[in-house]
């Protein structure tokens, strides 16, 4: 590293995608540069949609983002390689390779760089709603998460929880991955044998692992990822497929133990625990920031406010759990139902915004008495048969 402020190139690979790329560029243009120097470039892989490239170039110019259109279509692996090589040739310390259907939190680069500085780390993948097996499960990410403010707040909650920690994973995902240029020099670029794409980052990750570098996921940064936008557009994958079988066969041939390593990682429980704590952190932060509503009834309410956490508890108090829902994330907490008011106040550090009594029962009465000014009776017949 030559300077104290890391120099980072964010290379966004694009192939058509008019429906979502402007949102990605807006998000990239507002990345926080207080700790890092960031240049953004869009690598347009000769998008064939009529007039799209000209419009994309104009969008980039309006936002001070670099633009490069390849003379002919290279396919994902070679376009990604171009981004990696640009980082090396133009003197950057790190390159972030990113898809064009994402929304970055403002702190994305500084968080990824901090994670990338952990000992032995060669590449760092951001966390997301759509990042292969590492995804943070969400009921409807496009509805609940595709918003800049939401991404910023979720990522801030995860940064509070995890800081600049890293989690070793079997393979990186290039939807948003940071790689040091020193590592690129050592490991090389993507293998064009993967044609138009898929599995090339798995191959690269496993090559980096063989060269002695750790493959990491940064749980302290959340990037929204719509997923497969360009690849569906290009006909690279069909609606029901998430990969390219012939490329998977190359991985199987080169790394016969990879699948069993992935299975071992999945069954280790590390990821489950990280996901649980992450959703817990998101819930807690949202409840503290925007409040929470206690819904007393047999089923979660069908209409909810997106900005508050909805806590659903059974009306009779016999089920010792409360289900927390916030923007498509779900967490089930074990509680003493008749101490739920105190438990949630302690958890969120505040009283509920409202108590909605959808169904009658012993717990409904108790909560009605505890929060008389906040309680609204909204039910008619019991929700459960």
């Amino acid at each position, binding site marked *: 590293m030559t300077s104290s402020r890391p120099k980072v190139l964010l290379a966004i690979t694009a192939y058509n995608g008019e429906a979502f790329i402007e949102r990605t560029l807006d998000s990239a243009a507002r990345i926080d540069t207080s700790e890092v120097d960031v240049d953004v470039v869009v*690598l*347009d892989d000769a998008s064939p949609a009529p007039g799209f490239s*000209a419009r994309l170039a104009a969008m980039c110019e309006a936002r001070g983002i670099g633009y*490069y*259109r390849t003379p002919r279509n290279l396919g994902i692996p*070679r376009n990604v390689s*171009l981004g990696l090589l640009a980082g090396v040739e133009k003197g950057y310390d790190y390159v972030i390779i990113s898809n064009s259907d994402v929304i970055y939190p403002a702190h994305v680069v500084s968080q990824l760089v901090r994670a990338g500085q952990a000992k032995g780390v060669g590449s760092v993948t951001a966390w997301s709603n759509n990042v292969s097996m590492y995804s943070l499960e969400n009921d409807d990410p496009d509805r609940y998460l595709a918003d800049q403010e939401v991404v910023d707040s979720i990522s801030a909650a995860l940064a509070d929880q995890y800081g600049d920690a890293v989690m070793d994973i079997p393979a990186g995902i290039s939807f948003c991955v940071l790689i040091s240029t020193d590592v690129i020099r050592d490991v090389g670029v993507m293998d*064009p044998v993967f044609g138009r794409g898929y599995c090339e980052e798995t191959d690269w990750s496993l090559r980096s692992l063989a060269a002695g570098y750790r493959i990491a996921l940064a749980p302290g940064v959340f990037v929204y990822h719509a997923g497969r936008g360009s690849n569906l557009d290009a006909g690279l994958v069909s609606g029901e497929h998430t990969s390219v079988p012939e490329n998977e066969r190359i991985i199987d041939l080169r790394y016969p133990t990879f699948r069993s390593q992935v299975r071992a990682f999945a069954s280790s429980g590390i990821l489950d625990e990280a996901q649980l704590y992450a959703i817990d952190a998101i819930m807690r932060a949202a409840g503290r920031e925007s409040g929470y509503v206690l819904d007393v009834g047999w089923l979660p309410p069908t209409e909810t406010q997106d900005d508050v956490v909805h806590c659903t508890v059974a009306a009779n108090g016999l089920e010792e759990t409360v289900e927390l829902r916030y923007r498509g994330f779900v967490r089930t907490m074990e509680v003493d139902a008749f101490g739920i008011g105190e438990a949630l106040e302690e958890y969120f550090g505040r009283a509920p915004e409202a108590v909605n009594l959808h169904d009658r029962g012993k717990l409904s009465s108790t909560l009605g008495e505890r929060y008389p000014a906040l309680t609204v009776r909204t039910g008619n017949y019991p929700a459960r048969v």
Partner: protein
Amino acid sequence: MADQAASDEVTNTFDLDGVSLVQALRDVEVANARVIDLTKRLTSMNKELVKATTALQKAQLRNRQLDARIKELEKIEGSRAFRSARVAGRLASGVRSRLAK
């Protein structure tokens, strides 16, 4: 067509032509080397395949011949003459053992 032409005429604000060209040439070199390597491996595996197929065919032929002999033997075993000879043989050995006493 006019829109397509506009796509082709966009101005790059980040120059990567040189980097792209160098890497493309490397990719071509590697691709050529891979084709040569794959061709070598294909031809040598093809030779192995021909060898293995020949050995298999020979074994199948021998197997067929053995099958034919087994069938012939089974036919002989099932014939009246063979059964009579076997009975006669048993009788003869009985007589021989009695005479020996």
